[in-house]
Protein backbone atom coordinates (compact mmCIF):
# COMPACT_ATOMS: atom_id res chain seq x y z
CA UNK A 1 0.00 0.00 0.00
CA UNK A 2 1.38 3.35 -0.95
CA UNK A 3 0.41 6.78 0.19
CA UNK A 4 -2.32 8.47 -1.73
CA UNK A 5 -2.21 11.82 -3.42
CA UNK A 6 -4.90 14.42 -3.87
CA UNK A 7 -4.99 16.80 -6.79
CA UNK A 8 -7.32 19.71 -7.25
CA UNK A 9 -8.21 20.26 -10.91
CA UNK A 10 -10.47 22.84 -12.47
CA UNK A 11 -11.17 24.63 -15.71
CA UNK A 12 -13.69 26.64 -17.67
CA UNK A 13 -15.15 23.72 -19.58
CA UNK A 14 -14.85 19.96 -19.67
CA UNK A 15 -15.91 17.30 -22.13
CA UNK A 16 -15.82 13.75 -20.81
CA UNK A 17 -17.42 12.13 -23.82
CA UNK A 18 -19.87 9.30 -23.22
CA UNK A 19 -18.83 6.38 -25.41
CA UNK A 20 -22.42 5.92 -26.59
CA UNK A 21 -22.80 9.59 -27.58
CA UNK A 22 -19.57 10.32 -29.34
CA UNK A 23 -20.63 11.66 -32.73
CA UNK A 24 -22.40 14.66 -31.30
CA UNK A 25 -20.40 14.45 -28.11
CA UNK A 26 -22.18 14.58 -24.79
CA UNK A 27 -20.20 14.76 -21.59
CA UNK A 28 -20.66 12.59 -18.54
CA UNK A 29 -22.01 14.54 -15.58
CA UNK A 30 -18.71 14.17 -13.77
CA UNK A 31 -15.15 13.17 -14.51
CA UNK A 32 -14.79 9.43 -15.06
CA UNK A 33 -11.80 7.62 -13.49
CA UNK A 34 -10.05 7.15 -16.82
CA UNK A 35 -9.94 10.92 -17.40
CA UNK A 36 -8.61 11.42 -13.88
CA UNK A 37 -5.89 8.86 -14.59
CA UNK A 38 -4.96 10.73 -17.77
CA UNK A 39 -4.55 13.97 -15.80
CA UNK A 40 -2.23 12.31 -13.28
CA UNK A 41 -0.23 10.72 -16.09
CA UNK A 42 0.18 14.15 -17.70
CA UNK A 43 2.05 15.19 -14.56
CA UNK A 44 4.03 12.06 -13.78
CA UNK A 45 4.02 8.55 -15.13
CA UNK A 46 6.52 5.80 -15.80
CA UNK A 47 5.92 2.29 -17.09
CA UNK A 48 6.92 1.17 -13.61
CA UNK A 49 3.78 2.60 -12.01
CA UNK A 50 0.05 2.45 -12.52
CA UNK A 51 -2.30 5.09 -11.17
CA UNK A 52 -5.42 3.90 -9.36
CA UNK A 53 -8.21 6.38 -8.78
CA UNK A 54 -9.85 5.99 -5.37
CA UNK A 55 -12.33 8.83 -5.14
CA UNK A 56 -13.48 11.84 -7.13
CA UNK A 57 -14.88 14.85 -5.29
CA UNK A 58 -17.21 17.06 -7.28
CA UNK A 59 -16.87 20.65 -6.10
CA UNK A 60 -19.13 22.59 -8.45
CA UNK A 61 -22.77 22.23 -9.55
CA UNK A 62 -23.18 20.17 -12.71
CA UNK A 63 -24.09 22.47 -15.61
CA UNK A 64 -23.98 22.00 -19.36
CA UNK A 65 -23.53 24.15 -22.45
CA UNK A 66 -23.67 23.30 -26.14
CA UNK A 67 -20.90 24.21 -28.58
CA UNK A 68 -21.10 23.38 -32.27
CA UNK A 69 -17.97 23.33 -34.38
CA UNK A 70 -16.92 22.56 -37.91
CA UNK A 71 -14.93 19.35 -37.86
CA UNK A 72 -13.37 17.12 -40.46
CA UNK A 73 -14.90 13.79 -41.30
CA UNK A 74 -11.84 11.63 -41.80
CA UNK A 75 -8.60 10.57 -40.30
CA UNK A 76 -5.40 10.65 -42.29
CA UNK A 77 -5.40 7.48 -44.39
CA UNK A 78 -2.24 5.56 -43.62
CA UNK A 79 -2.32 3.98 -47.08
CA UNK A 80 -2.06 7.31 -48.87
CA UNK A 81 0.77 8.39 -46.62
CA UNK A 82 2.65 5.17 -47.25
CA UNK A 83 2.29 5.50 -51.01
CA UNK A 84 3.47 9.09 -50.91
CA UNK A 85 6.38 8.10 -48.71
CA UNK A 86 7.45 5.35 -51.05
CA UNK A 87 7.43 7.51 -54.10
CA UNK A 88 8.89 10.50 -52.28
CA UNK A 89 6.21 12.90 -53.43
CA UNK A 90 3.90 14.87 -51.19
CA UNK A 91 1.16 15.13 -53.79
CA UNK A 92 -2.20 14.02 -52.51
CA UNK A 93 -1.26 13.93 -48.86
CA UNK A 94 -3.74 16.43 -47.55
CA UNK A 95 -7.18 16.83 -46.12
CA UNK A 96 -9.49 19.34 -47.77
CA UNK A 97 -11.49 20.57 -44.84
CA UNK A 98 -14.19 22.41 -46.72
CA UNK A 99 -15.01 19.35 -48.80
CA UNK A 100 -15.02 17.07 -45.79
CA UNK A 101 -17.10 19.07 -43.34
CA UNK A 102 -19.05 17.78 -40.42
CA UNK A 103 -20.76 20.14 -38.05
CA UNK A 104 -20.93 18.55 -34.67
CA UNK A 105 -22.31 19.81 -31.40
CA UNK A 106 -20.64 19.06 -28.10
CA UNK A 107 -22.49 19.23 -24.83
CA UNK A 108 -19.80 20.33 -22.40
CA UNK A 109 -19.63 20.90 -18.66
CA UNK A 110 -19.29 24.48 -17.39
CA UNK A 111 -16.84 25.52 -14.66
CA UNK A 112 -16.00 22.03 -13.46
CA UNK A 113 -13.78 21.53 -10.40
CA UNK A 114 -12.74 18.26 -8.82
CA UNK A 115 -10.42 16.77 -6.30
CA UNK A 116 -8.92 13.50 -7.46
CA UNK A 117 -7.87 11.06 -4.76
CA UNK A 118 -5.57 8.41 -6.08
CA UNK A 119 -2.59 6.21 -5.35
CA UNK A 120 -0.26 4.22 -7.55
CA UNK A 121 0.88 0.65 -7.65
CA UNK A 122 4.13 -0.70 -8.97
CA UNK A 123 3.79 -2.80 -12.10
CA UNK A 124 5.75 -5.79 -13.30
CA UNK A 125 8.06 -3.43 -15.19
CA UNK A 126 9.35 -1.84 -11.99
CA UNK A 127 12.96 -2.62 -11.17
CA UNK A 128 15.06 -2.18 -8.06
CA UNK A 129 15.40 1.57 -8.54
CA UNK A 130 11.64 2.12 -8.54
CA UNK A 131 10.67 2.64 -4.96
CA UNK A 132 7.25 3.93 -4.09
CA UNK A 133 8.69 6.86 -2.21
CA UNK A 134 10.61 8.01 -5.28
CA UNK A 135 7.61 8.21 -7.56
CA UNK A 136 5.46 9.75 -4.87
CA UNK A 137 8.11 12.42 -4.33
CA UNK A 138 8.40 13.12 -8.03
CA UNK A 139 4.66 13.50 -8.40
CA UNK A 140 4.27 15.71 -5.34
CA UNK A 141 7.17 17.89 -6.35
CA UNK A 142 5.92 18.37 -9.89
CA UNK A 143 2.31 18.99 -8.90
CA UNK A 144 3.31 21.51 -6.23
CA UNK A 145 5.52 23.42 -8.68
CA UNK A 146 3.04 23.29 -11.51
CA UNK A 147 5.34 21.13 -13.61
CA UNK A 148 3.87 18.70 -16.07
CA UNK A 149 4.83 16.50 -18.99
CA UNK A 150 2.09 18.24 -20.94
CA UNK A 151 -0.71 20.49 -19.76
CA UNK A 152 -3.48 18.15 -18.55
CA UNK A 153 -6.94 18.58 -19.96
CA UNK A 154 -10.51 17.99 -18.89
CA UNK A 155 -11.55 15.37 -21.41
CA UNK A 156 -10.41 16.97 -24.64
CA UNK A 157 -7.32 19.07 -25.23
CA UNK A 158 -9.01 22.39 -25.93
CA UNK A 159 -10.30 22.38 -22.37
CA UNK A 160 -7.10 22.79 -20.43
CA UNK A 161 -7.04 21.84 -16.77
CA UNK A 162 -5.44 23.95 -14.08
CA UNK A 163 -4.14 21.86 -11.21
CA UNK A 164 -2.82 22.27 -7.71
CA UNK A 165 -1.61 19.72 -5.21
CA UNK A 166 -3.75 19.39 -2.11
CA UNK A 167 -1.46 19.40 0.91
CA UNK A 168 -1.21 15.92 2.38
CA UNK A 169 -2.27 17.25 5.79
CA UNK A 170 -5.32 19.20 4.63
CA UNK A 171 -8.76 17.82 5.41
CA UNK A 172 -11.29 17.31 2.66
CA UNK A 173 -13.86 18.54 1.85
CA UNK A 174 -14.18 21.43 4.23
CA UNK A 175 -17.12 23.68 3.43
CA UNK A 176 -16.22 27.28 2.75
CA UNK A 177 -12.56 26.78 3.49
CA UNK A 178 -10.56 29.98 3.88
CA UNK A 179 -9.16 31.42 0.71
CA UNK A 180 -11.12 29.10 -1.57
CA UNK A 181 -12.86 32.05 -3.21
CA UNK A 182 -9.50 33.66 -3.93
CA UNK A 183 -8.25 30.46 -5.42
CA UNK A 184 -11.24 30.29 -7.74
CA UNK A 185 -10.70 33.87 -8.84
CA UNK A 186 -7.11 33.04 -9.64
CA UNK A 187 -5.62 35.06 -6.81
CA UNK A 188 -2.88 33.87 -4.55
CA UNK A 189 -4.30 32.98 -1.16
CA UNK A 190 -2.05 33.58 1.80
CA UNK A 191 -2.27 30.00 3.00
CA UNK A 192 -2.72 26.94 0.86
CA UNK A 193 -6.23 25.96 1.81
CA UNK A 194 -7.86 22.69 1.00
CA UNK A 195 -10.22 23.29 -1.90
CA UNK A 196 -13.77 22.89 -0.76
CA UNK A 197 -17.23 22.75 -2.12
CA UNK A 198 -19.28 25.92 -2.17
CA UNK A 199 -22.26 25.60 0.14
CA UNK A 200 -24.71 26.29 -2.66
CA UNK A 201 -23.37 23.26 -4.49
CA UNK A 202 -24.43 20.95 -1.66
CA UNK A 203 -27.66 19.99 -3.35
CA UNK A 204 -29.40 16.73 -4.24
CA UNK A 205 -27.80 17.22 -7.65
CA UNK A 206 -24.48 16.25 -6.15
CA UNK A 207 -25.98 13.51 -4.02
CA UNK A 208 -26.48 15.45 -0.81
CA UNK A 209 -29.37 13.99 1.14
CA UNK A 210 -29.97 10.98 -1.07
CA UNK A 211 -27.27 9.37 -3.19
CA UNK A 212 -27.53 10.20 -6.87
CA UNK A 213 -27.18 7.32 -9.28
CA UNK A 214 -25.20 8.35 -12.36
CA UNK A 215 -25.79 5.04 -14.11
CA UNK A 216 -23.05 3.03 -15.76
CA UNK A 217 -19.94 5.02 -16.38
CA UNK A 218 -16.67 4.24 -18.08
CA UNK A 219 -14.20 3.00 -15.49
CA UNK A 220 -11.33 2.72 -17.91
CA UNK A 221 -10.31 1.08 -21.13
CA UNK A 222 -8.50 -2.21 -20.79
CA UNK A 223 -5.48 -1.53 -22.97
CA UNK A 224 -3.90 -4.88 -22.15
CA UNK A 225 -6.71 -7.03 -23.47
CA UNK A 226 -7.15 -7.67 -27.22
CA UNK A 227 -9.67 -5.31 -28.77
CA UNK A 228 -9.23 -2.91 -25.87
CA UNK A 229 -12.65 -3.37 -24.28
CA UNK A 230 -14.28 -0.73 -22.10
CA UNK A 231 -14.74 -1.42 -18.42
CA UNK A 232 -17.77 0.09 -16.75
CA UNK A 233 -18.95 0.64 -13.20
CA UNK A 234 -22.09 1.94 -11.60
CA UNK A 235 -21.24 5.45 -10.43
CA UNK A 236 -23.03 6.97 -7.47
CA UNK A 237 -22.58 10.48 -6.14
CA UNK A 238 -22.79 10.46 -2.34
CA UNK A 239 -22.42 13.86 -0.72
CA UNK A 240 -20.47 15.09 -3.70
CA UNK A 241 -18.08 12.15 -3.81
CA UNK A 242 -17.82 9.21 -6.19
CA UNK A 243 -16.15 6.13 -4.76
CA UNK A 244 -14.31 4.34 -7.53
CA UNK A 245 -14.07 0.57 -7.22
CA UNK A 246 -10.51 -0.80 -7.25
CA UNK A 247 -9.20 -2.65 -10.30
CA UNK A 248 -10.32 -6.23 -10.53
CA UNK A 249 -13.22 -5.79 -8.12
CA UNK A 250 -16.58 -7.35 -9.07
CA UNK A 251 -18.10 -3.88 -9.41
CA UNK A 252 -16.01 -3.26 -12.52
CA UNK A 253 -18.03 -4.78 -15.36
CA UNK A 254 -16.85 -5.79 -18.78
Amino acid sequence: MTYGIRLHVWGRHALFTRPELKVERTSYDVMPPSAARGILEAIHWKPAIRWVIDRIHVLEPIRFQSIRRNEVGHKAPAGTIKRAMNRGDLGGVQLLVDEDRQQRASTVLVNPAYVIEAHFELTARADASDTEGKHLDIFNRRAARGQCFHQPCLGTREFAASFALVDPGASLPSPQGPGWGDLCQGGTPTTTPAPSRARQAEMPDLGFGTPRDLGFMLWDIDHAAPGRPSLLFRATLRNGVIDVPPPGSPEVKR
Partner: protein
Amino acid sequence: MTTLSRRHDFVLIFDVANGNPNGDPDAGNLPRLDPETSHGLVSDVSLKRKIRNYVELARTGEAGHHIYVQEGAILNEKHRQAYTALRGETSGKKEAKLNPRDDAEARELRDWMCRNFFDVRTFGAVMSTGINCGQVKGPVQMTFANSVEPILPVEISITRMAATNEAEQKKRAEGAEDGDTRTDNRTMGRKHIVPYGLYVAHGFISAKFAERTGFSEADLELLFEALTNMFEHDRSAARGEMTTRRLIVFRHENALGNAPAHKLFDRVTIGRNVDGEFRALDDRGLGNHAPARKFSDYVVQIDRDGLPDGVEVLDLV
Protein backbone atom coordinates in the same frame (compact mmCIF):
# COMPACT_ATOMS: atom_id res chain seq x y z
CA MET B 1 17.06 21.66 -36.23
CA THR B 2 17.20 21.60 -32.47
CA THR B 3 14.02 20.39 -30.88
CA LEU B 4 12.37 22.56 -28.32
CA SER B 5 13.79 21.94 -24.88
CA ARG B 6 11.83 24.41 -22.78
CA ARG B 7 8.14 24.54 -21.92
CA HIS B 8 6.23 27.66 -22.95
CA ASP B 9 2.84 29.01 -21.99
CA PHE B 10 1.39 31.96 -23.82
CA VAL B 11 -1.41 34.50 -23.67
CA LEU B 12 -2.73 35.74 -26.98
CA ILE B 13 -4.77 38.94 -26.88
CA PHE B 14 -6.57 39.96 -30.05
CA ASP B 15 -9.48 42.20 -30.88
CA VAL B 16 -12.20 42.56 -33.47
CA ALA B 17 -13.86 45.73 -34.67
CA ASN B 18 -17.11 45.57 -36.63
CA GLY B 19 -16.67 41.97 -37.57
CA ASN B 20 -17.58 38.42 -36.68
CA PRO B 21 -14.50 36.67 -35.28
CA ASN B 22 -16.05 33.19 -35.20
CA GLY B 23 -19.58 32.32 -36.28
CA ASP B 24 -21.68 29.76 -34.40
CA PRO B 25 -23.13 27.17 -36.80
CA ASP B 26 -25.81 26.46 -34.20
CA ALA B 27 -27.06 30.04 -34.09
CA GLY B 28 -27.26 31.08 -37.73
CA ASN B 29 -23.65 32.26 -37.80
CA LEU B 30 -24.12 34.67 -34.93
CA PRO B 31 -20.82 35.37 -33.16
CA ARG B 32 -20.19 32.65 -30.57
CA LEU B 33 -21.45 33.58 -27.14
CA ASP B 34 -21.19 32.00 -23.73
CA PRO B 35 -24.95 31.88 -23.02
CA GLU B 36 -24.46 32.34 -19.27
CA THR B 37 -22.18 35.35 -19.28
CA SER B 38 -22.60 36.85 -22.77
CA HIS B 39 -18.87 36.80 -23.17
CA GLY B 40 -17.78 36.12 -26.73
CA LEU B 41 -15.98 32.90 -27.65
CA VAL B 42 -13.58 31.97 -30.42
CA SER B 43 -12.96 28.25 -30.71
CA ASP B 44 -9.47 26.80 -30.55
CA VAL B 45 -9.90 25.24 -33.97
CA SER B 46 -10.72 28.61 -35.49
CA LEU B 47 -7.39 29.99 -34.27
CA LYS B 48 -5.50 26.89 -35.39
CA ARG B 49 -7.04 27.26 -38.85
CA LYS B 50 -5.60 30.76 -39.09
CA ILE B 51 -2.17 29.59 -37.99
CA ARG B 52 -2.24 26.88 -40.66
CA ASN B 53 -3.37 29.36 -43.28
CA TYR B 54 -0.60 31.77 -42.35
CA VAL B 55 2.11 29.12 -42.48
CA GLU B 56 0.83 27.91 -45.80
CA LEU B 57 0.90 31.44 -47.13
CA ALA B 58 4.29 32.34 -45.74
CA ARG B 59 6.12 29.08 -46.37
CA THR B 60 4.52 27.57 -49.46
CA GLY B 61 6.70 24.95 -51.03
CA GLU B 62 9.38 25.04 -48.35
CA ALA B 63 10.49 21.59 -47.32
CA GLY B 64 8.99 20.51 -44.04
CA HIS B 65 6.40 23.27 -43.98
CA HIS B 66 3.52 21.65 -45.79
CA ILE B 67 0.07 21.87 -44.31
CA TYR B 68 -1.94 18.70 -44.06
CA VAL B 69 -5.36 20.05 -43.11
CA GLN B 70 -6.06 22.40 -45.97
CA GLU B 71 -8.82 24.76 -46.88
CA GLY B 72 -10.00 24.79 -50.48
CA ALA B 73 -8.76 22.85 -53.45
CA ILE B 74 -5.16 23.80 -54.08
CA LEU B 75 -2.30 23.03 -56.40
CA ASN B 76 -1.34 19.79 -54.74
CA GLU B 77 -4.69 18.35 -55.67
CA LYS B 78 -3.94 19.24 -59.27
CA HIS B 79 -0.55 17.61 -58.99
CA ARG B 80 -2.16 14.47 -57.81
CA GLN B 81 -4.65 14.46 -60.63
CA ALA B 82 -1.81 14.86 -63.07
CA TYR B 83 0.07 12.11 -61.37
CA THR B 84 -2.89 9.78 -61.41
CA ALA B 85 -3.51 10.51 -65.07
CA LEU B 86 0.08 9.78 -65.91
CA ARG B 87 0.85 6.68 -63.93
CA GLY B 88 -2.49 5.56 -62.55
CA GLU B 89 -3.20 5.22 -58.87
CA THR B 90 -1.49 2.29 -57.20
CA SER B 91 -4.93 0.89 -56.60
CA GLY B 92 -6.21 -2.62 -56.70
CA LYS B 93 -5.16 -3.25 -53.13
CA LYS B 94 -7.80 -3.39 -50.48
CA GLU B 95 -7.69 -0.42 -48.11
CA ALA B 96 -7.19 -2.76 -45.16
CA LYS B 97 -3.91 -3.92 -46.62
CA LEU B 98 -2.69 -0.35 -46.72
CA ASN B 99 -2.79 -0.05 -42.98
CA PRO B 100 0.64 -0.37 -41.40
CA ARG B 101 1.64 -3.93 -40.66
CA ASP B 102 3.13 -3.26 -37.24
CA ASP B 103 4.00 -0.56 -34.76
CA ALA B 104 7.41 0.05 -36.29
CA GLU B 105 5.90 0.84 -39.64
CA ALA B 106 3.25 3.04 -38.06
CA ARG B 107 6.04 4.92 -36.33
CA GLU B 108 7.86 5.35 -39.60
CA LEU B 109 4.74 6.80 -41.23
CA ARG B 110 4.16 9.07 -38.29
CA ASP B 111 7.71 10.41 -38.34
CA TRP B 112 7.50 11.04 -42.06
CA MET B 113 4.30 13.02 -41.57
CA CYS B 114 5.86 15.03 -38.75
CA ARG B 115 8.94 15.81 -40.82
CA ASN B 116 6.98 17.06 -43.79
CA PHE B 117 3.93 18.74 -42.33
CA PHE B 118 4.15 21.73 -40.03
CA ASP B 119 0.63 21.32 -38.70
CA VAL B 120 1.07 17.62 -37.90
CA ARG B 121 4.29 18.47 -36.03
CA THR B 122 2.61 21.33 -34.19
CA PHE B 123 -0.97 20.31 -33.47
CA GLY B 124 -0.87 16.56 -34.14
CA ALA B 125 -3.08 14.39 -36.31
CA VAL B 126 -4.96 11.14 -36.16
CA MET B 127 -4.18 8.54 -38.78
CA SER B 128 -6.42 5.66 -39.75
CA THR B 129 -4.47 2.99 -37.96
CA GLY B 130 -4.77 1.10 -34.69
CA ILE B 131 -6.08 2.71 -31.54
CA ASN B 132 -2.88 4.28 -30.28
CA CYS B 133 -0.21 3.90 -32.90
CA GLY B 134 -1.66 6.20 -35.52
CA GLN B 135 -2.04 9.23 -33.31
CA VAL B 136 0.29 12.19 -33.13
CA LYS B 137 -0.22 14.46 -30.16
CA GLY B 138 1.19 17.84 -31.00
CA PRO B 139 3.07 19.97 -28.50
CA VAL B 140 0.95 23.07 -29.07
CA GLN B 141 -2.46 23.26 -27.45
CA MET B 142 -4.76 26.25 -27.37
CA THR B 143 -7.91 26.91 -25.39
CA PHE B 144 -11.05 28.73 -26.40
CA ALA B 145 -10.57 32.49 -26.54
CA ASN B 146 -12.91 34.47 -24.31
CA SER B 147 -13.80 38.11 -24.60
CA VAL B 148 -12.81 40.08 -21.52
CA GLU B 149 -16.20 41.80 -21.29
CA PRO B 150 -19.66 40.72 -22.47
CA ILE B 151 -20.17 41.42 -26.16
CA LEU B 152 -23.34 42.55 -27.86
CA PRO B 153 -23.59 41.23 -31.41
CA VAL B 154 -25.42 43.52 -33.81
CA GLU B 155 -27.43 42.27 -36.72
CA ILE B 156 -27.00 44.27 -39.90
CA SER B 157 -29.39 43.84 -42.79
CA ILE B 158 -27.83 44.32 -46.18
CA THR B 159 -29.23 44.34 -49.70
CA ARG B 160 -27.92 43.07 -52.98
CA MET B 161 -28.95 44.68 -56.24
CA ALA B 162 -29.22 41.42 -58.12
CA ALA B 163 -31.21 38.22 -58.15
CA THR B 164 -29.65 34.77 -58.03
CA ASN B 165 -31.71 33.32 -60.84
CA GLU B 166 -34.60 34.13 -63.15
CA ALA B 167 -37.23 32.54 -60.95
CA GLU B 168 -36.23 34.82 -58.12
CA GLN B 169 -36.25 37.81 -60.44
CA LYS B 170 -39.74 36.94 -61.63
CA LYS B 171 -41.05 36.60 -58.11
CA ARG B 172 -39.62 39.96 -57.16
CA ALA B 173 -40.98 41.62 -60.29
CA GLU B 174 -44.53 40.54 -59.40
CA GLY B 175 -44.36 42.31 -56.09
CA ALA B 176 -42.85 45.50 -57.48
CA GLU B 177 -44.93 48.29 -59.02
CA ASP B 178 -42.64 50.91 -60.42
CA GLY B 179 -40.78 48.56 -62.76
CA ASP B 180 -37.35 49.80 -61.72
CA THR B 181 -35.16 46.78 -62.49
CA ARG B 182 -32.60 47.85 -59.99
CA THR B 183 -34.96 47.53 -57.02
CA ASP B 184 -36.86 44.65 -58.60
CA ASN B 185 -33.87 42.43 -58.36
CA ARG B 186 -33.05 43.33 -54.82
CA THR B 187 -32.41 40.53 -52.29
CA MET B 188 -31.79 41.07 -48.63
CA GLY B 189 -29.20 39.43 -46.48
CA ARG B 190 -27.92 39.49 -42.94
CA LYS B 191 -24.59 40.07 -41.32
CA HIS B 192 -23.74 39.75 -37.68
CA ILE B 193 -20.99 41.88 -36.26
CA VAL B 194 -19.41 42.53 -32.91
CA PRO B 195 -18.87 46.30 -32.68
CA TYR B 196 -15.80 45.70 -30.55
CA GLY B 197 -14.44 42.79 -28.60
CA LEU B 198 -11.12 42.04 -26.92
CA TYR B 199 -10.42 38.32 -26.70
CA VAL B 200 -7.90 36.33 -24.71
CA ALA B 201 -6.72 32.82 -25.56
CA HIS B 202 -4.30 30.69 -23.59
CA GLY B 203 -1.80 28.35 -25.16
CA PHE B 204 0.53 25.63 -23.98
CA ILE B 205 3.63 24.24 -25.65
CA SER B 206 4.87 21.00 -24.17
CA ALA B 207 8.57 20.45 -24.72
CA LYS B 208 8.18 16.74 -24.04
CA PHE B 209 5.71 16.33 -26.88
CA ALA B 210 7.96 18.50 -29.06
CA GLU B 211 10.67 15.87 -28.61
CA ARG B 212 8.35 13.27 -30.05
CA THR B 213 7.22 15.20 -33.11
CA GLY B 214 10.45 17.07 -33.78
CA PHE B 215 8.91 20.50 -33.21
CA SER B 216 11.99 22.74 -33.22
CA GLU B 217 13.05 26.15 -31.95
CA ALA B 218 12.63 27.41 -35.51
CA ASP B 219 9.09 26.05 -35.55
CA LEU B 220 8.43 27.95 -32.34
CA GLU B 221 9.60 31.16 -33.98
CA LEU B 222 7.31 30.45 -36.91
CA LEU B 223 4.41 29.75 -34.58
CA PHE B 224 4.88 33.08 -32.83
CA GLU B 225 5.23 34.81 -36.19
CA ALA B 226 1.96 33.19 -37.25
CA LEU B 227 0.19 34.22 -34.05
CA THR B 228 1.38 37.77 -34.60
CA ASN B 229 0.46 38.04 -38.25
CA MET B 230 -2.32 35.56 -38.82
CA PHE B 231 -5.15 38.09 -38.84
CA GLU B 232 -3.32 40.29 -41.34
CA HIS B 233 -3.87 37.61 -43.96
CA ASP B 234 -7.38 36.60 -42.99
CA ARG B 235 -9.25 39.65 -44.20
CA SER B 236 -12.77 39.02 -45.39
CA ALA B 237 -16.18 40.64 -45.49
CA ALA B 238 -17.23 38.80 -42.35
CA ARG B 239 -14.19 39.33 -40.15
CA GLY B 240 -14.03 43.11 -40.02
CA GLU B 241 -10.81 44.32 -38.49
CA MET B 242 -9.05 41.75 -36.40
CA THR B 243 -5.62 42.33 -34.94
CA THR B 244 -3.24 40.54 -32.61
CA ARG B 245 -2.71 43.09 -29.87
CA ARG B 246 -0.44 41.28 -27.45
CA LEU B 247 1.42 38.01 -27.39
CA ILE B 248 2.85 37.35 -23.97
CA VAL B 249 5.00 34.25 -23.67
CA PHE B 250 6.14 32.63 -20.46
CA ARG B 251 9.33 30.71 -21.15
CA HIS B 252 10.25 28.09 -18.59
CA GLU B 253 13.83 27.10 -18.05
CA ASN B 254 13.26 23.38 -18.43
CA ALA B 255 11.04 20.95 -20.25
CA LEU B 256 8.62 20.31 -17.42
CA GLY B 257 8.18 23.91 -16.45
CA ASN B 258 8.92 25.97 -13.39
CA ALA B 259 5.50 27.25 -12.35
CA PRO B 260 1.82 26.35 -12.74
CA ALA B 261 0.39 27.73 -15.96
CA HIS B 262 -2.67 29.27 -14.28
CA LYS B 263 -0.52 31.29 -11.92
CA LEU B 264 1.46 32.70 -14.84
CA PHE B 265 -1.70 33.52 -16.78
CA ASP B 266 -3.02 35.37 -13.73
CA ARG B 267 -0.10 37.75 -14.02
CA VAL B 268 -1.68 39.19 -17.13
CA THR B 269 -4.56 41.42 -16.10
CA ILE B 270 -6.75 43.45 -18.38
CA GLY B 271 -8.66 46.47 -17.17
CA ARG B 272 -10.47 49.47 -18.60
CA ASN B 273 -8.51 52.58 -19.34
CA VAL B 274 -10.16 55.54 -17.62
CA ASP B 275 -8.12 58.65 -18.42
CA GLY B 276 -4.97 56.64 -18.39
CA GLU B 277 -5.83 54.89 -15.16
CA PHE B 278 -6.21 51.12 -14.79
CA ARG B 279 -9.66 50.09 -13.59
CA ALA B 280 -10.55 46.47 -12.95
CA LEU B 281 -13.27 45.16 -15.24
CA ASP B 282 -15.59 44.44 -12.32
CA ASP B 283 -15.12 47.95 -10.90
CA ARG B 284 -18.62 49.24 -10.15
CA GLY B 285 -17.53 52.74 -10.99
CA LEU B 286 -17.31 51.75 -14.65
CA GLY B 287 -21.09 51.69 -15.05
CA ASN B 288 -21.24 55.21 -16.41
CA HIS B 289 -18.60 54.66 -19.03
CA ALA B 290 -19.44 53.90 -22.61
CA PRO B 291 -18.76 50.39 -23.86
CA ALA B 292 -15.25 49.81 -25.12
CA ARG B 293 -14.84 50.43 -28.84
CA LYS B 294 -11.10 50.42 -29.34
CA PHE B 295 -8.01 48.78 -27.95
CA SER B 296 -6.94 51.94 -26.14
CA ASP B 297 -10.08 51.62 -24.00
CA TYR B 298 -8.25 48.75 -22.31
CA VAL B 299 -5.03 48.46 -20.37
CA VAL B 300 -3.04 45.24 -20.33
CA GLN B 301 -0.76 44.84 -17.34
CA ILE B 302 1.86 42.19 -16.75
CA ASP B 303 2.91 41.60 -13.18
CA ARG B 304 6.62 40.92 -13.43
CA ASP B 305 7.28 41.20 -9.70
CA GLY B 306 8.44 38.07 -7.99
CA LEU B 307 8.33 35.87 -11.06
CA PRO B 308 8.98 32.26 -10.13
CA ASP B 309 12.60 31.22 -10.62
CA GLY B 310 13.33 30.02 -14.10
CA VAL B 311 10.41 31.76 -15.77
CA GLU B 312 11.05 34.49 -18.28
CA VAL B 313 8.38 36.77 -19.75
CA LEU B 314 8.68 37.56 -23.43
CA ASP B 315 6.52 40.37 -24.65
CA LEU B 316 6.44 39.57 -28.34
CA VAL B 317 3.83 42.06 -29.56
